[in-house]
């Protein structure tokens, strides 16, 4: 009897083990993939303005981004009053989150995206190609892609040159935010007529100002403080610097990173860290610009967000009337390096899921179209983050009907659009990742590691140890770039 029960148990166990792999093959069927670029669209004019439906939007957990979406929803409701919005938070890695929602068959209709993750999500078939809508609305005269900065508009496209996978919500480019109080304290000339710190200033100008500030910091007991939070291993910054130095990442079938240009660029960056001008992000050291200690921040963050942070730091002085926020900080363009200068850029935006219900699809596009309209772009600014608008006709922040400069008239907001203005064309997206878009993050990580590895090395520039480190990080980077671009 005992033997029979034991045998039965073994048979049941074996059957269960055999069934599990079979059952695992019967997974919940994921939603229908990308409908391609041939699906039918309804003309904007034919849409029922009183249609009642719900659009789900997934956006960042960041309160400002949620406010942006709420502001856009409220503006959109003026034209489509019966469309409601379910806003859900997207926490952590966009790719991972979307993978979870996709497999659970509960994809949001619209979701926050950014130009690098978009490449992999699009390749996985999760993004709706907006081209049919763009084509239809261009034909009926309600949409014109030429209204937008081409350099930024294409960052929402398939491999940055094709079907539209994302509508960029702003034209972010790297600028330098600076603490005016620290500059004035160090005797830096900020007179608009004579200052070096102005749009289009050069790298040499930047270094001269840094030298003066460094001397002042050293003489006032702040020898250990860096001047700038530089984020040198962030692709928007390092790619602009490397590209300005003429660094080539890839040839046809090999990496070209091992070059004299790379060595010069890396030494220039290391020099910034050694002189304590710029804190390397990898070194987990910081100038603490946001805490009111550092002078510069090399970032694309909207001026209103920086203003909010510094208002908190200087709240006592602002409250007692010693300073206004425009006495405390301002922005200026990223310094131009050499004869072929570049300014880093990348964009965030919103995509429509390829799985969206056909009846909702037309309205989801209308929502994105509203976001890209003048009113929508103003709405974004008024929701608390005055990102530079995507529209070329809104470049002047203080022009009539343009609101991204409202309340910030004393700030140099032109710095945010300067690099993309006609005749400048300095905007530089991280294009080397297009060699293998599916491994964009890995390609970026390898270059970032090369920079971090060299900048964090304690050996001083020119020493044998530093040269050896420089050679090894570049050699490793070349191998790794080739692996991710061609072999993985």
């Amino acid at each position, binding site marked *: 009897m005992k033997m029979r029960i034991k045998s039965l148990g073994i048979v049941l166990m074996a059957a269960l083990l055999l069934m*599990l792999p079979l059952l695992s093959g019967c997974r919940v069927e994921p939603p229908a993939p990308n409908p391609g670029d041939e699906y039918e669209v309804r003309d904007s004019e034919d849409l029922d303005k009183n249609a009642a439906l719900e659009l789900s939007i997934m956006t960042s957990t960041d309160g400002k981004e949620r406010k942006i979406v709420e502001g856009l929803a409220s503006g959109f409701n003026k034209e489509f009053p019966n469309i409601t919005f379910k806003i859900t938070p997207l926490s952590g890695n966009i790719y*991972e989150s979307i993978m979870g929602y996709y497999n659970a068959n509960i994809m949001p209709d619209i979701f926050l995206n950014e130009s690098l993750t978009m490449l*992999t999500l699009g390749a*996985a078939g999760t993004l709706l190609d907006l081209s049919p809508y763009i084509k239809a609305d261009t034909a009926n005269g309600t949409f014109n892609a030429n209204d937008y900065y081409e350099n930024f508009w294409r960052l929402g496209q398939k491999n940055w040159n094709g079907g539209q996978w994302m509508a960029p919500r702003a034209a972010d480019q790297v600028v330098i935010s600076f603490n005016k109080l620290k500059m004035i304290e160090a005797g830096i000339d900020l007179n608009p007529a004579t200052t070096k710190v102005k749009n289009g200033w050069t790298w040499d100008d930047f270094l001269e100002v840094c030298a003066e500030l460094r001397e002042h910091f050293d003489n006032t007991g702040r020898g250990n403080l860096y001047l700038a939070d530089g984020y040198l291993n962030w692709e928007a910054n390092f790619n602009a610097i490397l590209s300005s130095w003429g660094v080539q990442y890839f040839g046809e079938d090999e990496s070209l990173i091992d070059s004299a240009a790379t060595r010069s660029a890396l030494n220039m960056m290391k020099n910034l860290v050694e002189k304590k001008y710029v804190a390397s992000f990898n070194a987990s050291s910081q100038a603490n610009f946001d805490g009111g200690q550092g002078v510069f921040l090399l970032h694309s963050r909207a001026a209103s967000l920086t203003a909010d942070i510094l208002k908190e730091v200087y709240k006592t002085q602002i409250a007692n009337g010693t300073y206004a926020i425009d006495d405390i900080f301002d922005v200026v363009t990223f310094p131009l390096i050499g004869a072929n200068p570049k300014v880093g850029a990348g964009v965030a935006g919103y995509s429509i899921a390829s799985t969206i219900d056909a009846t909702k699809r037309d309205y989801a596009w209308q929502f994105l179209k509203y976001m890209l309209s003048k009113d929508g772009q103003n709405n974004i600014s008024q929701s608390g983050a005055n990102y530079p608008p995507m529209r070329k006709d809104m470049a002047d922040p203080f022009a009539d009907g343009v609101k991204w400069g409202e309340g910030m008239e004393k700030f140099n907001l032109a710095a945010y659009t300067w690099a993309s203005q006609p005749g400048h064309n300095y905007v530089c997206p991280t294009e080397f990742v297009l060699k293998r*878009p599916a491994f964009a993050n890995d390609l970026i990580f390898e270059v970032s*590691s090369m920079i971090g*590895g060299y900048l*964090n090395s*304690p050996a001083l520039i020119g020493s044998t140890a530093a040269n050896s480190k420089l050679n090894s990080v570049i050699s490793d980077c070349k191998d790794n770039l080739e692996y991710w671009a061609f072999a993985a």
Partner: protein
Amino acid sequence: MKKKTRISKRKSIENLQGVLFTLPVIIGIAVFTYYQAAQSLYYSFFDYNGFSKMDFVGFKNFVNIFTHDKETLVVFGNTFLYAVITVPLGLVLGYLTALLVNNKLKGINIFRALFYLPVVIPAVAAGVLWRDIFNSDYGVMNQIIGVFGLHSRFFEVASSSMPTLIFTTVWGVGGSMVIWLSAFKNIPVELYESAKLDGANAWHRLRYITLPMSTPMIFFNLVTAVIGSLQTMSTMVIMGGGAGSAGKGESNSLYFIVVKIYNDAFGRGGRMGYASAFGWILFIIIGLLTFVLFKSNKWVQYAENN
């Protein structure tokens, strides 16, 4: 005859009750663990991106791990180095700590609680804490060693990041300490009393009573420590950077097998099938090591053997 039937009937009811009581756990494990494990085994034979692309590739993923992937050697090297050092270190430190707090001093429970307290802190929070403690600019650790004129970059340079990480494993000795304390409590006091009567000193009592009698717990801690060290993950993600491609540490110095599995599955255009294969390789390795440990456990003194 009637009596026999009644007994077997009662036995059957007891068995049924037992099955019913364990059923929720069995269903839970089957649904939330075994099903996923089997599913990952299924995925490991496909070029699966985590979305809709799913092409059968046979054993290609498994072959590529050992013939094609240049990160394989790095992650195996780091993981095994970490395991080889932290497992014995954790066992010895945990055992010594347990011996230290295994006495009847006044207030000893406070020390036991203090040693155990770090174990209840979540790994991610602990990771953030260690990152700040070992920050090269403002970290407490540099201020402490600065007294002796020393300074280190800890996690920021490849050469010191692994030793620094291993140092942080001391954090978890409270976990094994508690298990050993319970083992010590189960050793019959009479053994010590007889040994004392026979003239055994403290060392002899430790060598010939405490150690042999706690070998089952040493074995348990050894097996769980080996498995745990090969599955090192969450703390590294915080210490080594962020999500996606990060979590590798400076120059890949903290790049572990599970971090790679996570990166491949969720950060690289979705190599879910490949990551699943890697997961199964890790499972096989852990299974083999555990098997070897069980086969070589003749040194373990079980009470029933005596």
